[in-house]
């Protein structure tokens, strides 16, 4: 409230001060006061996920004063609420300005979550587990970001300019985290993670801008500070303190140069060069609870980890417009991420996941190190644009991208060939039609790891092509049109189809199909009516092939090997189908005086996972290939209705009032019939994160606004 008072006081002072000069100079702005009465049933956190709609009164203010040579401007929105924001700037036209910003960004996840732990919101959770959830303590999963910023811009020594900005973000709250309790695949516990982050950013740019040359150097520095480096919690079975590591403090800087020079023949050469470094450091745990029992690390080559990555980016682009009907562009981009972090050697006391390569027995004390992943990428491209008669434009392009990976187990290099052509036609004068096709063809240098290094995982690597690097053929088709047969009518329509075949993947994602249709229209009927409507449809279909338990303890089973009740292949096809429509009308009951605004929106999404076991013997315990599907994956319907009357009492004064209704229904197989405690490899404990997000809300509101 102190901030709110300060802002209001500042505005009032500015208003009084500027009014004194208003005759000579220009004063403008507005002030509004909105009152709201809300009735929210159900999940208030989801309703207010990124906003703060509650009963009360809030002002919006903007005040600007302009002498012709100097200006000052300030505004504040949602004052006093969790999503309030303020902006202030002042300066001399053509010479420079100063600005200040403040933004409040809420992110509400789940209210009324509960845990048997004490100390939620801190980095020390204490308490033994129990199943009497009625005695658990409640808390809210919610984050709030407060962003403070300011900066300046100087143009006093043209063609040079200088801009500098600094910003600080404070992020506080609680978000859900989790931890395994015993062996891999065993029980889990959901724990509230405290968020107390501070990020300070500084951005400086010095440039020179006059024809034919533009050049600028930039410096960016970011410092991230996490108040909590570990989340200590009482281990539910060991009943001693366990620790979850949290994001480390880090520092990042980047130095860059951008430039462009106009060359003869209507060409332009552009360059972007930058180098950046990210650093972090973390104290490593010297002891920890290994798979549910207290233990100590057998070795750790260093108790401190120093993270360091360098990125270099060099981009060049030559653009040309040699003829009125031809455009051309040549590009080259080099990007490298070098991982220079510490390599730490460590061991497991006894790992059920580390196997003797000959006997397949679990072994203890086998040392291993962290992998220093990095990559470098070269991109070469050529684009053209040719304008033909009848206002037909053809835009072919080609790109070649090769990426070399450091220390990835599965791939050394990927090569992408990307061909595309777009066609645009504006011949009829009342429409622009577009069509496009893009083909991405990826080939890779796949690594088949040595079996001796890690017998189980490595053998399976020959069947895996992880979709981020997998060989694939991706085809994208697009077609669309913007039609405006009348000045008062515009219609837009678009369709996009994208299919991706991960053709060499025996396991994992093999096929991805996406369809999208979007239509919208606007019509203005003189001074009486304005109508708008839209419809969007999307269908996503993904297909995966998997094998259950390919290693049975003594033998590795390939996808084509004989299956049985425990070692078998299965497939899943995941579908998401969404549609979204809305319509709105502005009815000018008394033109320029009374407007009735009505808007309705509806969103519906249904997800489905269709499973098939490819071995009948595996369908045990009442399972059939017809009764194992998940029929509701992130199913939801959201509808909202707003009706509002706006009465312009004078040119300066307006009054509006209205009603809004919003309804959200959500159903998900992973959250329905939610249980805070359940058995799965042992006792599991949840806190309610993301559960039961459905709500419906009624809001009555009225606003008085005055602008000048």
């Amino acid at each position: 409230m102190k901030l709110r008072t300060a802002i209001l006081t500042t505005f009032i002072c500015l208003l009084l001060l500027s009014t004194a000069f208003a005759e000579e100079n220009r004063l403008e702005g507005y002030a509004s006061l909105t009152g709201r009465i809300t009735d929210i049933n159900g999940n208030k956190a989801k309703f207010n996920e990124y906003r703060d709609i509650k009963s009360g009164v809030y002002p919006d203010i903007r005040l600007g004063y302009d002498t012709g040579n100097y200006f000052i401007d300030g505004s504040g929105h949602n004052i006093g609420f969790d999503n309030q924001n303020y902006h202030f700037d002042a300066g001399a036209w053509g010479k420079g300005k100063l600005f200040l910003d403040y933004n409040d960004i809420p992110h509400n996840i789940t209210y009324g979550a509960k845990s048997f732990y004490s100390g939620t919101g801190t980095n020390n959770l204490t308490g033994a587990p129990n199943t009497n959830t009625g005695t658990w303590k409640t808390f809210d999963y919610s984050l709030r970001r407060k962003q403070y910023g300011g900066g300046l811009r100087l143009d006093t020594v043209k063609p040079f300019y200088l801009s500098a900005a600094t910003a600080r973000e404070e992020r506080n709250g609680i978000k859900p985290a989790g931890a395994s309790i015993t062996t891999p695949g065993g029980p889990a516990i959901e724990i509230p993670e405290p968020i107390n982050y501070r990020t300070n950013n500084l951005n400086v740019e010095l440039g020179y801008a006059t024809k034919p040359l533009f050049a600028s150097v930039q410096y960016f520095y970011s410092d991230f500070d996490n108040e909590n480096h570990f989340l200590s919690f009482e281990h539910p079975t060991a009943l001693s303190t366990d620790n979850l590591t949290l994001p480390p403090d880090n520092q990042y800087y980047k130095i860059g140069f951008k430039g462009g020079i106009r060359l003869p023949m209507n060409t332009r050469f552009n360059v972007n060069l930058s180098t950046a470094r990210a650093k972090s450091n973390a104290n490593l745990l010297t002891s920890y609870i290994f798979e549910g029992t207290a233990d100590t690390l057998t070795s750790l080559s260093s108790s401190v980890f120093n993270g360091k990555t360098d990125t270099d980016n060099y981009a060049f682009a030559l653009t040309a417009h040699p003829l009125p009907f031809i455009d051309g562009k040549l590009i080259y981009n080099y990007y490298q991420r070098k991982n220079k972090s510490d390599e730490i050697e460590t061991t497991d006391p006894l790992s059920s996941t580390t196997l003797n390569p000959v006997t397949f027995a679990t072994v203890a004390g086998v040392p291993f190190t962290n992998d220093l992943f990095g990559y470098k990428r070269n991109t070469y491209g050529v684009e053209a644009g040719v304008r033909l008669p009848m206002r037909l434009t053809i835009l072919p392009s080609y790109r070649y991208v090769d990426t070399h990976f450091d220390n990835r187990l599965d791939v050394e290099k990927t090569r992408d060939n990307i061909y595309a052509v777009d066609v645009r036609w504006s011949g009829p004068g009342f429409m622009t039609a577009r069509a496009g096709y893009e083909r991405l063809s990826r080939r890779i240098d796949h690594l088949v790891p040595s079996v001796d290094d890690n017998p189980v995982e490595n053998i399976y690597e020959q069947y895996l092509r992880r979709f981020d690097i997998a060989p694939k053929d991706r085809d994208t088709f697009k077609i669309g049109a913007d039609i405006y047969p009348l000045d008062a009518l515009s219609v837009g329509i678009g369709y996009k189809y994208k299919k991706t075949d991960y053709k060499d993947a025996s396991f994992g994602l093999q096929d991805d199909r996406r369809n999208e249709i979007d239509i919208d229209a606007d019509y203005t009927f003189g001074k009486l009516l304005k109508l708008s409507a839209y419809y969007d449809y999307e269908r996503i279909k993904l297909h995966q092939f998997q094998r259950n338990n390919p290693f049975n303890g003594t033998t590795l089973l390939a996808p084509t090997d004989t299956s049985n009740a425990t070692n078998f292949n299965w497939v899943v096809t995941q579908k998401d189908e969404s549609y979204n429509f809305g319509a709105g009308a502005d009815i000018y009951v008394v033109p320029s005086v009374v407007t009735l605004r009505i808007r309705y929106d509806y969103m519906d999404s249904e997800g489905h996972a269709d499973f098939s076991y490819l071995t009948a013997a595996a369908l045990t315990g009442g399972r059939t290939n017809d009764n194992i599907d998940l029929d509701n994956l992130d199913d939801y319907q959201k509808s909202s209705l707003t009706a509002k009357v706006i009465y312009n009492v004078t040119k300066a004064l307006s009054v509006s009032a209205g009603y809004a209704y919003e309804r959200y229904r959500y159903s998900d197989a992973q959250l329905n019939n939610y249980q805070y405690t359940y058995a799965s490899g042992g006792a599991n404990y949840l806190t309610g994160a993301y559960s039961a997000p459905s709500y419906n809300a009624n809001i009555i509101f009225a606003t008085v606004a005055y602008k000048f």
Partner: protein
Amino acid sequence: MRKLFYLSRFLTALFFPVLISFGMVSPGSAQGDAGYVGADVCKGCHEGYYESYARSIHAKKAIPGSPANKHACESCHGPGAAHVSAGGGKGTGIFPFSRKQIADEKAARCLSCHEETEHLAFWDLSMHKRAGVSCDNCHSPHSGRPENLKMSTPGLCYGCHRDINAMTNKQSHHPINEGLVRCTDCHDPHGTFSSKMIKADSVNELCYKCHADKRGPYMWEHPPVDENCLICHTPHGSNHNRLLDKKTPELCQSCHETRGHPGAPYTRFNTFNPPAGGTVSNKLVARSCLNCHTNIHGSNGPSTHGKRFVR
């Protein structure tokens, strides 16, 4: 750097002859000083447009090179004498910035002043330019809005990017429609060197500006995290929580197929309320894989617990 120097020389040497071979003149037309009638004449018929111009930044005499220091309305619309002589008329003897005009011709009017600023220095690289978008599709000096935008974002952007609008309506989304994140926080509509005109050299660099906690560098890295956030996330909106492009556990199983629990099917028989014969599985319910693998963006945790992102 030496390699880069040679590379830039090579590119220039290779393609200059090609461009020179076109051997043609620039498309811009020289504009003489004759034929200007002055803003007062324009105001006589177009008072509304004139008033909005007068309130805009273009009318600031304090800004060197502004239309106010040139030919006011005629700085953009061209000399008006022929238009006046003809008795007016839309597009008669004047440059009206209409839909029927070629985008590059309209943009050239604006770029004659704005090209050599940091905002428009890389307009030639812009996807908008390539798509036939001109300045006046988004801006109007007569709009009276900040930055002369015809309407505020994101509505302005949604006018063409209908698919993005649909995504932002999904249940998991960045707070774009709530007005807390703007399209221009991530994208520069005037052109950048990067794909999708993002305001960074890579996707991750952009994301880390707000999500600095994900920046690490971590001891145990998850390779797709450091290569591209968009391998798992879709930034504008998703049906799935945390802006995931696919539902877990299937998202994770797309890559992780090995012995033990990663390769198992998690079906209706593993929900909180399974049919007879089923059992609840923590690999499916609640946060699925993330119930245990909570530090999926990277970990400094001990031994295999860190390597598998469970601590």
